[in-house]
């Protein structure tokens, strides 16, 4: 393993950092948030022009052929800048799910537009009461002479108000209970029967809740066998992106807070001279480095683990890093005092992103519960033929 960025990776990082520096200072960002449109179209076109939307998508579909590392590099800088455009939802989550699910010809049909920014798609997989877990699907797809017709309700569709179409997960009625029978369907956002409600999120990003009332799908992506695995793969990439974002957010929180402690005076001294605040910063830094280590665990899983293992690793990394980020960013506010609570100052917004991140893609607690269930299964599989339950 090699933890330093290669020179190419540094170039990518620097170019994203430059974009953030030029387009995402506190004032510019606040203006974007206040405009309440889920970011700027110009920024999105900038992302596309720089190749970031397809950074980790294959070259054969007009992507740039990078790996999860490129996603992490971009996301980390976006986390530092608190980017509000739906890179996570549309580029990473939808792009990678689509790639994992679709046939090559479907990829050729949908990915180039996604990558060049000419067409936005969002993934509609979560449902009221599924808490972001992809296996829980009540939306269903019926066969009709014209194709599949979808019924159901999806929520927290990231980037949802701004897209041309949705990738929707739905169960086929012929397999009502089996967890494997989930298909992914492409529907247009202007399809009859589809209504979308805009959900503004705390961090200035936007999602949608969509109701599908007999909506005719354009097509099913790939086959029924691979719907759920493809969702998990897309979620793995998205969770990685979120983890990297939060590491970036924590970095910035630490920088901003350290600066504040150096500049702020109380009782005639820099408040950085107070030992209890120094120690708090040290703890925050240590937690951040532990979270960064977890991000590396997550990255490594893309190179060394099978898809199922990777999904589990990413799930636990996501819960873990979100927990750390909530704490570190909350302490960032605390060390600022009153100013940290204001909308005009940046530090509070990192906390908001951490709170939203904890909810996205499966709340921390619910993901942890799923990881624990999986651990129980692992133990019960392993113990089938071992001595068990020995009396003392």
């Amino acid at each position, binding site marked *: 393993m090699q933890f330093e960025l290669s020179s190419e990776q540094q170039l990518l990082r620097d170019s994203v950092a430059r974009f953030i520096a030029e387009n995402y200072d506190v004032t510019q960002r606040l203006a974007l948030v206040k405009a309440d449109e889920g970011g700027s179209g110009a920024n999105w076109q900038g992302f596309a022009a720089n190749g970031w939307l397809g950074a980790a998508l294959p070259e054969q579909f007009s992507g740039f052929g990078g790996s999860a590392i490129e996603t992490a590099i971009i996301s980390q800088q976006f986390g530092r800048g608190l980017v509000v455009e739906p890179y996570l939802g549309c580029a990473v989550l939808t792009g990678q799910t689509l790639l994992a699910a679709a046939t090559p010809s479907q990829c050729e049909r949908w990915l180039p537009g996604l990558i060049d920014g000419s067409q936005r798609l969002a993934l509609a997989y979560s449902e009221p*009461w599924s808490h972001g877990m992809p296996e829980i699907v009540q939306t269903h797809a019926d066969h009709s002479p014209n194709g599949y017709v979808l019924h159901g309700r999806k929520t927290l569709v990231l980037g949802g108000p701004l897209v041309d179409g949705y990738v929707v997960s739905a169960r086929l009625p012929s397999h009502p209970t089996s967890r494997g029978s989930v298909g992914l369907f492409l529907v247009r956002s202007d399809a009859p029967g589809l209504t979308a409600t805009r959900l503004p*999120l705390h961090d200035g990003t936007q999602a949608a809740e969509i109701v599908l009332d007999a909506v005719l799908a354009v097509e099913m992506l790939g086959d029924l066998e691979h719907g759920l695995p493809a969702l998990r793969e897309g979620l793995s990439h998205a969770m990685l992106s979120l983890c990297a974002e939060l590491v970036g957010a924590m970095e910035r929180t630490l920088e901003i807070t350290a600066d504040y402690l150096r500049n702020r005076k109380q009782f005639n001294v820099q408040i950085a001279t107070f030992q209890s605040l120094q120690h708090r910063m040290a703890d925050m830094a240590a937690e951040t480095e532990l979270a960064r280590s977890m991000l590396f665990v997550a990255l490594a899983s893309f190179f060394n683990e099978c898809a199922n293992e990777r999904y589990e690793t990413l799930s636990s990394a996501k819960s873990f890093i979100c927990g750390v980020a909530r704490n570190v960013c909350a302490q960032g506010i605390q060390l600022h005092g009153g100013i940290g609570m204001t909308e005009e100052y940046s530090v509070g917004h990192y906390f908001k992103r951490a709170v939203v991140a904890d909810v996205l893609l499966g709340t921390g607690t619910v993901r942890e519960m799923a990881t624990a269930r999986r651990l129980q299964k692992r133990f019960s599989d392993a113990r089938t033929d071992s001595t068990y339950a020995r009396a003392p």
Partner: protein
Amino acid sequence: MDFNVDPALVSFRTTVQDFLRNELPRDLANLPRSISSERSETADWQRLLTAHGWGAPYWPVNRGGTGWSVEQQIIFDEECAAAGTPTLDNFAHKLLGPVLNHFATDDQRAEHVGPTLAGERFWCQGFSEPGSGSDLASLRTRAQRDGDFYVVNGQKIWTSYAHRADWIFLLVRTSQSEKKQLGISFLLADMKTPGITVRPIMSIDGRHHLNEVFFDNVRVPAANLIGREGEGWSITKYLLNNEHASTAELPMLQVFLRRMQNLAVEIQLDGKALVEHPEFALRLSRFETEMKAVSMMVQRTAALHGQESPIAHAMGSMLKLRGTDLQQRMSAFIVEMLGDYGAVFYPCPHEGPATSLPLQELAAGAASEMFLRRASTIYGGTNEVQRGIIAKALYGF
């Protein structure tokens, strides 16, 4: 020691409950409870209480109050929160009130008490300044005597609800004496006085609670000085010392717990209510346990009211540490319980256009409250300041 419940308090609780059940109009009941209600609601509620003779529930009888014990006041606050009444103007009741009762002249009281209890005079508190947060005594807003007036120049910050207050009580520097605490005085000012400007500060919960208040040659009648010139610091200590049992904001914690209990059955996960999942049940039951402990700590703090001892001095600060920690964790858990909807920003019904988002009824306000609670470890003396107070009071460190 005696842990039998005082029957007088039981019957007092019944009295309050009866009053609320019978007298509280529907439009003032079951309101969502946060740090402060809308002004019009608070005003209506204040008038209703005053009409009932309960207009000053925390003041002594000889100052026009109910004369209730701290224990009774807690019961009153709990029951009001449970009934979802508006909040009162606590700057008037719990902060300025004791100061007026103790330090003001009869004339001053005569001027302010009536309009305040009639719901016509709302107050805000001008203490913090941009350069003086934890180091309050370093404040720099000047008040220069000019005949029968003080001419006030300077700036206050974090002034909650200044934008809807009629009057402000504020600390000003009236002399540059040797010790910075000795040059501070306590003034009352009409917010309509020329030269006072209020600039809103939006906070991260997406709402407008806070303000900056600028004073530009503001002429305040010298008759509005409370106590003597230079007595402001000791008045402030008196004022802050009244608030020990309130630091945990117990009624709010109780609101959180009820909300949590409600969501535990209303919110589903994978076909079952949250409470049916052992992990959620465990966390909920831990919160119930902690609530019992904090409630009792409030009782103990109330019982120490007015005593002079290290523990009496430190107890309010200790309660603040534990109470605010619980506020933050409970309000955060509520947001977690909402699942996907925890990420959604539900605009406050009073601010911005009316909307109707999914799960509005269960979810609205939960996240705002969580964001707002981050301030609970900052306002009223940061928790770092409280730790210093405790270590000094208990151990002489």
